């Protein structure tokens, strides 16, 4: 089924064309150069940029796929979670195309997209699988039973993992986007230099990264109090080690408890090399297959929305109350 997907939940506007399992085109408009001047994602700017990008980007995507709008059989768009102003641009644009052309429309949850992004690989996982979804707005572990059935096993109680990276970057005075910068400096540092706390929360699959952030702050302030230089690389490496260990151990435990044979990851933080290596190593030890999406499909993209949308259409059909269906900032899948 020839599917056009539009995604605009945060930084990037993205569009993709997919025909069943074959991805024909997937494009993205990066906006980091604009955001970096403001030290963070500026929502109003974001929605303005989406507005400017969405139509030319969609046309370019159709062109790259070698199809025209008249060939499209299904339109999918991200309904949430995310910044409402940004979501509205892509969602309304996609809805209007559907309304005018009569092409069936499906709404896709952004998190469903991330959960399924490893299925864009040539060899996808088998169901049921455990999926770790980690980004700036989300940290959660899901049990995926099918392409449309997801059970949230645990989620963050305070900060998302990606947010913890960004906040540590900020308190170290690193430029936006801080998360990837922390990972980069971590490769030059000693992960055992500082023993930052791991928040296990008993047997729960929930996460908490707020205490870790405070611990890093205390450590940095101690150096500043003593007038010493802050060993930024060692702090980054030790912080990253703490996050990676908690994410790895909890995901593995969730897989073993639910007796699944496959683990997947998704979301912006799933591009983190230390996390990928750690999960791959532990999965091998435990006889579990590990599936990480290609780097281009870790961050927000429309290919995952096309994939999720096709399966949702096959299972539940098209969205019925097109004009009355609105975006949401918070996902029913849990954030």
């Amino acid at each position, binding site marked *: 089924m020839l599917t056009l997907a539009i995604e605009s939940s*945060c930084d990037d506007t993205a569009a993709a064309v997919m025909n069943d399992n074959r991805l024909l085109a997937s494009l993205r408009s990066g906006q980091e150069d604009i955001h970096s001047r*403001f*030290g*963070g*994602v*500026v*929502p*109003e700017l974001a929605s303005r940029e989406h507005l400017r990008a969405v139509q030319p980007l969609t046309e370019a995507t159709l062109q790259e796929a070698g199809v025209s709008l008249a060939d499209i059989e299904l339109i999918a768009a991200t309904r949430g*979670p*995310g*910044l*409402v*102003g940004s979501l509205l641009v892509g969602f309304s644009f996609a809805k209007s195309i559907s309304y005018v052309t009569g092409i069936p429309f499906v709404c896709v949850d952004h998190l469903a997209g991330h959960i399924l992004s490893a299925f864009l690989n040539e060899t996808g996982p088998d169901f049921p699988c455990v999926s770790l979804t980690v980004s*700036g*707005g989300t940290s959660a572990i899901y049990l995926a039973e099918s392409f449309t059935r997801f059970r949230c096993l645990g*989620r*963050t*109680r*305070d*900060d*998302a993992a990606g*947010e913890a990276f960004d*906040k540590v970057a*900020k*308190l170290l005075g690193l430029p936006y986007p801080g998360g990837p910068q922390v990972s980069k400096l971590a490769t030059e540092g000693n992960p055992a230099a500082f*023993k930052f706390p791991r928040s296990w929360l008993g047997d729960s699959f*929930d996460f908490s990264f*707020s205490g870790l*952030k*405070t*611990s890093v*702050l*205390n*450590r940095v*302030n*101690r150096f500043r*109090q003593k007038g010493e230089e802050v060993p930024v690389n060692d702090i980054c490496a030790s912080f990253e080690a703490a996050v990676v260990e908690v994410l790895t151990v909890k995901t593995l435990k969730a897989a073993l408890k639910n007796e699944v044979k496959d683990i997947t990851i998704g979301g912006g933080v799933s591009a983190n090399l230390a996390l990928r290596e750690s999960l791959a190593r532990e999965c091998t030890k435990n006889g579990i297959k590990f599936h990480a999406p290609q780097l281009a499909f870790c961050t927000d993209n429309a290919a995952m929305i096309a994939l999720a949308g096709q399966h949702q259409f096959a299972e539940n059909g098209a969205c019925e109350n097109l004009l009355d269906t609105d975006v949401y*900032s*918070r996902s029913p899948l849990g*954030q």
Partner: protein
Amino acid sequence: MRLKLKNLQETQLLGRILGELAVAGDIICLEGDLGAGKTTLTQALALGLGVEEDNYVTSPSFAILQEYEGRAPLYHFDFYRLGDSAEVEEQGFSEYFFAGGVCVIEWPQAAEASLPPERLTLTLIIDMDIPIEEDGENNSRIAQVEGTLKEKDFLKIFQQRLDIVSISYI
């Protein structure tokens, strides 16, 4: 009024008291550096307002606004990433200030021009005079309280509640 919060528990007690005293229409602005305890205080405030414990109050930094059901709805904002009042208005956030809920606003500077004058501003300051030991923690905070909540005798009741839990003034 300046309060001395000796540890994390006292930050949580302060949040709890504010949550118990808050009514629909109250605006609480939270100022303080990263890691000063703004989200921790809001989590305790939510419990005081009757938000269910398993309805986690997570950081609104990414989403800008998170809503929770309590005795009155809790609207938890983080305006760190917004530029100015025009953006607060355009995004429709200012409507929430008059929507019959309790608004807790982190990094409220961008909303300054849109905020109703009757509000409470709480500034959490990391007490840098306390030297941090190796592997040590410094969760000691100074809380500066300005303004008021809608409760008629707010200041009097607030002080009584602080006395009960032995939070000290500076």
